[in-house]
């Protein structure tokens, strides 16, 4: 009997000594983080699928919330601990002294970036100057308006030279195809 107890303690010591993370979900604190259900939140998905967050001692639960104001409000109410938030919202958070911190950036564009101004495959629009007088669909977010404004500015144009159509849903990319195919718009920011 005494030998059995000694062996049991040795076995428990060996298991504890492996440094394995707690396996029961209930043993780990849960962080609720907002996300947009976007391709660019891939680091969240990888961390969940590869178990990186749990290996480090936290469990992550993604909560889909649309709109920066709603995201910050949810964080202030304690419904989420944080999440993914567009850069423009952080400038406004700083101006309004909203009590939050950005603790890591979540990616930048690069020469292979496909986000931008898209035109129909067979469009005769070849440069940004050709956008003059054209209907351009965009979400209306600060990001999309800033990118379009700068593109037009670089081409010697302003927003007054084009016909912006605001309101496309950035989280519904399949609808973008329908919009372009409909020929109701000449370009789309996505």
């Amino acid at each position: 009997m005494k030998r059995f107890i000694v062996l049991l303690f040795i076995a428990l010591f060996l298991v504890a000594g492996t440094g394995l993370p707690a396996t029961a979900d209930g043993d780990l604190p849960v962080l609720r983080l907002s996300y947009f259900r976007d391709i660019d939140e891939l680091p969240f998905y990888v961390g969940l699928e590869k178990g990186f967050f749990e290996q480090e001692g936290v469990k992550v639960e993604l909560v889909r919330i649309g709109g920066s104001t709603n995201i910050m409000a949810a964080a202030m109410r304690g419904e989420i601990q944080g999440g993914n938030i567009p850069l423009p919202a952080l400038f406004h958070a700083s101006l309004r002294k909203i009590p939050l911190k950005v603790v890591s950036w979540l990616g930048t564009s690069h020469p292979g970036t496909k986000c931008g101004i898209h035109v129909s495959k067979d469009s005769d629009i070849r440069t940004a100057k050709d956008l003059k007088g054209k209907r351009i669909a965009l979400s209306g977010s600060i990001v999309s308006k800033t990118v379009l404004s700068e593109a037009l500015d670089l081409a010697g144009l302003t927003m007054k030279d084009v016909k912006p159509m605001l309101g496309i849903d950035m989280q519904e990319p399949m609808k973008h195809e329908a919009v372009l195919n409909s020929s109701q718009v000449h370009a789309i920011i996505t």
Partner: protein
Amino acid sequence: MLEVHGVSRLLSSFHDIIPDFVFSGVFFSDTFLNSHPEQAKAFLRGLVKSFVFIREHGAEARGFIPKYTGVQRDVAMVCAIRNFSVTGREPNGFIDHQRDLMVKFGSLSKSVTLDSVIDYSYLPQ
């Protein structure tokens, strides 16, 4: 995605228009950071592991996209994804340039620094 489906042609990318465009960041509320700093650090250690994994195992990482986004696998495997800094940090110049453009085009009432909002101290060194 539109290009992959043969629907569109990219006229100008975000990067062409505003180089090194910083899209978004991960934030936590001050309340959470003050009460659970170790949990924030743990999350960020996991996030940095993800950044490295995406860089080293891009195809396997892309395979997770359909489950979380609804994007079709054929698109997920070839679509452009962001450049993720493995340190989680970005040069201030990238951020300041976007701020200046927001002011220029009227999306921000005045120039403001993010010094009081950015806190890299929870990231692994």
